[in-house]
């Protein structure tokens, strides 16, 4: 039977693309989350944000 190296290359190439793609996608998710953590605004925990009662009220 002929060796069909093309089919072997297609199978391993496909696996490389799928697993490599998933690896990269995980890395991208981690970077996005890290960026989100870094850019988490200090105003979120700042007392200024959650004090509407202290704002001057309009007549």
């Amino acid at each position, binding site marked *: *039977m002929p*060796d069909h190296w093309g089919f*072997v290359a*297609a199978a391993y190439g*496909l696996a490389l693309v799928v697993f490599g793609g998933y690896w990269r996608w995980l890395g991208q998710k981690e970077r996005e*989350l890290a960026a989100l*953590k870094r850019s988490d605004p200090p105003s979120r925990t700042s007392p200024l944000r959650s004090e509407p009662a202290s704002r001057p009220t309009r007549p």
Partner: protein
Amino acid sequence: MVRVLGWFAVVAVVAGLAMGFGVAPREATQGNVQRIMYLHVPAVWVAYLAFIVGFVASIAYLARRRNGADHLAHAACEVGTLFLGVNIATGAIWGKPTWGTWWTWDARLTSVAVVFVMFLAYLLLRQAVEDPERSARYAAVLGIVAALNIPLVHFSVYWWRTLHQPPSLLKPGSSSMPGSILTALLVNFAALALLGAYFVARRTRVLADEAEAIA
């Protein structure tokens, strides 16, 4: 720790490729196209393992409602689906030169396709339900039901007449494989199992971080 696991997985995959292409001999009947087996068979074993982890974690979530169990179940089922997809695709690529067809609706291929579609539905369900608690609960039930089909896939080659060959290794009695082919297969299984474990660990951490960011 997770990073170290990743490096182990990379080294093991390189060793697996060396075993599959360098050490294992050319198969007498099929020729070199049989080397697809070193990817195709371990991929489904890793998928089975991941689905079993997902099954146990789903039961744990339903019992105790811990988010960690839900994240582990989600990650394991996602990684299992990835490996099962690779198994189905490489099986089709292997089937064309050996059977003369990419796909046939025999019992093994049909049952594995059903499981694959069920886990795709699991992942879609995760996206579709917005409430995290309901999403986790529904997904846990579907993950358990889908994993219960794995024995059906494995034993389909015994219960029905199929084009697919019966298992060479996961069966009662000793293996009928020559030693060098068996060793290459087991090394590749270890390599893909490490890769799968690495993906599950990393994805679980990402899911936990995402949940924390949303909260």
